[in-house]
């Protein structure tokens, strides 16, 4: 299988001098293949979120390279990087981060609008994905009229509707109770298997990490060990 994500000696340091220097990600090299359901695990401050941001092109590495499907996104910037994220990466955030003035349907539709998908196709895909995440009939509700679990389902639908190759989820279940968290992970796993999308999510919840097919343990910005089930 080909590596859809490949980082080589990637570093992300914060601070200007020796005393204040923080090595958030320190010389990390990983390869993740298409369709993997990978969890980045480790305690707070271990570098999980920073590594996800580097893989997602939200942050630039201090050194090293980040390649997604063979493209070195560390060398990209501005509009090109925005377009790359739009077409290749879906994001799910811990705090859902839905647009509050949009309904669930509009939140999902927005990214397709950026891609230039025509209106009829947008509507069709929104209905389809809402059904897949179990939110049929709730499409016209704004985020403040949805529960936390429902909002995160909308976030999953928004991340997937553009049909990206990679979904990056930063602590997607952290704001949910354990029952809803597990249900959400099961949904993500199901979508991962049915759509063959590559999922990487960060977590420090042991119940959640059991669902992953691969665990990358991080500590102090380095990979402690990489465990494939």
């Amino acid at each position, binding site marked *: 299988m080909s590596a859809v994500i490949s980082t080589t000696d990637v570093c992300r340091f914060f601070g200007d001098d020796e005393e204040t220097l923080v090595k958030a990600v320190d010389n990390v090299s990983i390869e993740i293949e298409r369709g993997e359901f990978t969890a980045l695990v480790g305690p707070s401050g271990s570098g999980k979120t920073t590594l996800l941001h580097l893989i997602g092109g939200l942050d630039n590495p201090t050194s090293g390279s980040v390649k997604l499907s063979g493209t070195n996104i560390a060398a990209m910037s501005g*509009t090109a990087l925005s*377009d790359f*994220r739009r077409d290749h990466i879906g994001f799910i955030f811990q705090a859902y*981060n839905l*647009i509050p*003035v949009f309904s669930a349907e509009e939140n999902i539709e927005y990214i397709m609008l950026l891609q230039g998908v025509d209106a009829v196709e947008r509507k069709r895909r929104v209905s389809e994905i809402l059904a897949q995440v179990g939110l049929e009939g709730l499409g016209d509700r704004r985020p403040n009229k949805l529960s936390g679990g429902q909002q995160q389902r909308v976030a999953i639908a928004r991340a997937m509707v553009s049909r990206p190759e990679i979904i990056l989820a930063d602590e997607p279940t952290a704001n949910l109770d354990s029952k809803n968290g597990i249900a959400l992970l099961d949904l993500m796993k199901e979508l991962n298997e049915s759509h063959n999308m590559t999922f990487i999510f960060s977590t420090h919840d042991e119940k959640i990490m059991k669902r992953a097919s691969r665990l990358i343990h991080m500590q102090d910005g380095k990979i402690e060990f990489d465990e494939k089930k």
Partner: protein
Amino acid sequence: MLLFKLAFRNIFRQRRRSLLTAMSLTGGYVLCVFSFSMSEGSYSNAISFFIQDHTGHIQIHKDDYLRKPKIHKSIEAPEDISAILDASEQIESHTLRIFAPSLAYSETDNSPAQVIGIDLDRERTTTTLAAKISEGSYINSEIDGEGYYSAMIGAGIANNLNIGLGDELILISQGADGSIANDIYIVGAIVGDRRSSDRSTVFLPLAAAQEFLSMNDEVHEVSILLKDDGRARAEAEILQDLLPDLAVDPWQEVEATFYQSMQTDKQGNVIFMGIIVFIVFVGVMNTVLMSVLERTREFGVLKAIGTRPAKLALMITLETTMLASISVLLGLVLAIPLVLWFTYAGFALPEPMDVGGILMSHITGELSLYVFAAPLFLILGFAILISIPAGIRAAFNSPTEAMRSN
């Protein structure tokens, strides 16, 4: 469309703040419209005044008569020009005039006078001369039983010479052929009062003046009244092509000093209004920046999911422009009745105001597309301008940094 929807809904997120911002924009717009209406109205009234008083929309002269008037710079065969002008559908009417400086005498006194020979019938339909007669009646071009023509004289001359209706007036001048011109006329009417611009003028029938000044059928000036005030320059160009040997000037050239001071004053008014609008917009800019700062995290998310930086900046510009547009629409609803009242009723000034050299004692506004459109573009232009810094801030913020903020 979704971007418009997003921008529109964002306006209503902080309703009270948006309402206060809209109120200041609406107030600024109404103030601007009123000021533009007053400025345009004052100048329109002044322009109408001198166009109908004597200037007309267009004047025709021989060579540089307009700048250096000499008695011999006269138009030959004015009847040919009249035929052309009478045939034009754009022209309401026209009149023919000759001018000469002279000395006026009564039995006991004398006074300098400006003699103007006028085509009585045409002058009546072209200018307001007939309405300015304060004593007597509009004269005719007939010679009376004793062989004298009638004259209409300014109130200043009547006062200086101590003469009235029916009295004899003696005029002495120089004829076009170099001869000494002198003749006696009977006062048939007094024009205006002692403050009028015509106070030192003697109006004679055209034929009488031509005879007095030995000018045969020639005239010095053709003054034209158009049906449409706005076509002076265009019609002047058309007439110039038809009359290449003569100088055809629109009122803007004839009254160049007034026109230039009016344009300067109008530009000053636009700059002054621009400063007022800018001050209003300093407050609006604060609101826009605040609104962007509050949504830093949201902008980070929008960038993360693939919104281009330029599109984010566009969204912020759209929001500000939409708020300004709503405010201007509201302002329009308030400004239309105000301008209608100001245009058709207006108000009297406690002291007369000088408008380009003409004293106005009653001010009325102008109802035109310009008085509503110019402030509209001024406000929308500023709205776009002040949204640029906020847009740039949102566009160039790193998504990671933005998403860390609360």
